[in-house]
């Protein structure tokens, strides 16, 4: 007998009930599932009889459109459709060509070690390693992306040169090693304790090392009062904590870095977004050729909405993409521009 207390139902079951469009209590009764703790659910809550009673969910029901139920901002479907738009291993603007171009000033070489913060599926890191021979550790908040990204590295025979690891950006302990180069790619804007993270990144930078940061920043102080901005912020899969470009630059300087370049690259990003999505109709036509592909149409539309909203914020100037290149003193960081 199922108790009439839906609050005590396992979270996973409640989410599934919501997704299926049913009342959680009703759903539990229908499934023949009694009340259980979260722990029970973790262990599947599943006797053989439960498994038999549970209908196989349709593929489209297995994942939320943007974020799955486990708190990870990335679902398998989202990662899949993102790569159809941005390319294998990429979850956002900047293919290998753009990444290599953007990092020219880092004067990378095969003797160097590099840390990529916000590594996503590792596409940018692999492009850098392939092009410059640099050894890369990538940090990524999403366990899903780390797992898939490492699999891609393995398939490409790059598992040793590009290693991804999951991290909690709000709770970074001192890094256990130092790097010649650090690249934080659009990853700090979702971090509340940016100052702490940047301080740790400074500590992890070797003397004369370089720090490249690209990130979303506020277009102006008053933006945060605007309804459009709040709506954007509230609908992002991971909550943004954007600051002004001056504030971000200040944090980099206060950590101890000397800033060489600090510039607005919003237009470049708007163009990258526009170009990547220009062929979305063709991607959709390909997906529609198979049943598995059809299940990805709704996640693709959600991702399209997500990037359309970001693009709109960038075009209006409420949001900007900023690039900062900084170095850690101790002899003067050698950059291409010094040669």
């Amino acid at each position: 007998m199922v108790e009439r207390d839906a609050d005590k139902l396992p979270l996973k079951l409640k989410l599934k009930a919501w997704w299926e469009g049913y009342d959680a209590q009703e759903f539990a009764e229908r499934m023949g599932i009694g009340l259980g703790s979260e722990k029970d659910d973790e262990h599947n809550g599943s006797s053989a009889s439960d498994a038999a009673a549970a209908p196989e969910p349709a593929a489209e029901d297995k994942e939320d459109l943007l974020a799955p139920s486990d708190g990870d901002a990335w679902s398998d479907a989202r990662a899949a459709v993102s790569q159809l738009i941005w390319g294998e291993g990429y979850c956002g603007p900047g293919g290998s060509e753009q990444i290599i171009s953007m990092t020219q000033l880092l004067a990378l070489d095969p003797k160097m070690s590099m840390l990529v913060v916000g590594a996503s599926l590792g596409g940018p890191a692999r492009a850098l390693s392939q092009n410059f021979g640099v050894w890369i550790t990538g940090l990524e908040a999403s366990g899903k992306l780390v797992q898939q990204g490492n699999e891609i590295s393995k398939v490409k025979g790059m598992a040793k040169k590009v290693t991804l690891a999951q991290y909690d950006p709000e709770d970074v302990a001192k890094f256990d090693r130092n790097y010649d180069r650090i690249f934080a790619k659009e990853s700090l804007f979702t971090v509340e304790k940016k100052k702490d993270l940047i301080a740790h990144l400074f500590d992890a930078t070797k003397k004369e090392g370089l720090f490249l940061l690209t990130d979303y920043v506020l277009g102006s102080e008053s933006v945060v009062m605007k309804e459009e901005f709040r709506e954007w912020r509230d609908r992002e899969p991971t909550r943004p904590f954007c600051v002004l470009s001056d504030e971000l630059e200040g944090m980099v300087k206060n950590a101890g870095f000397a800033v060489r370049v600090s510039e607005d690259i919003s237009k470049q990003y708007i163009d990258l977004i526009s170009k990547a999505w220009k062929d979305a109709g063709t991607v959709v036509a390909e997906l529609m050729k198979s049943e598995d592909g059809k299940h990805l149409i709704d996640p693709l539309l959600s991702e399209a909405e997500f990037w359309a909203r970001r693009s709109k914020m960038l075009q209006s100037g409420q949001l900007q993409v900023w690039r900062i290149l900084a170095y850690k003193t101790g002899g003067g960081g050698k950059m291409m521009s010094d040669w």
Partner: protein
Amino acid sequence: MGERRDHKNRIQTGTELKLHLGDDCIAVHVLNISFGGVLLGSDERPEIGTQVRLTGEDITAVSGNVVRHDAKGFAVDLGDSVEAAQFAVESITSDMTPTDGAMGPEDEAS
């Protein structure tokens, strides 16, 4: 068990389109859209059951039937064709390409 709710993600876009009704053509805008259907805003509302065709700049043309009127506009069922899926994604992403001079720090002008 209660009635299953439709969890299709209805996406608001505001995309401007043209709606063709035989030889007539009226301006409409997207209130929200999903794969298979679109809610359109317009001063004119075709009768329920009317077959219409929707076109837009760089957007795949698609045909459908008016299925509902509501306070804000009218809904068109587009089915689940390839064209309907292309129409949806192209409508959502149509504003990603900036028009000249559209971009800039918002408060600079003020």
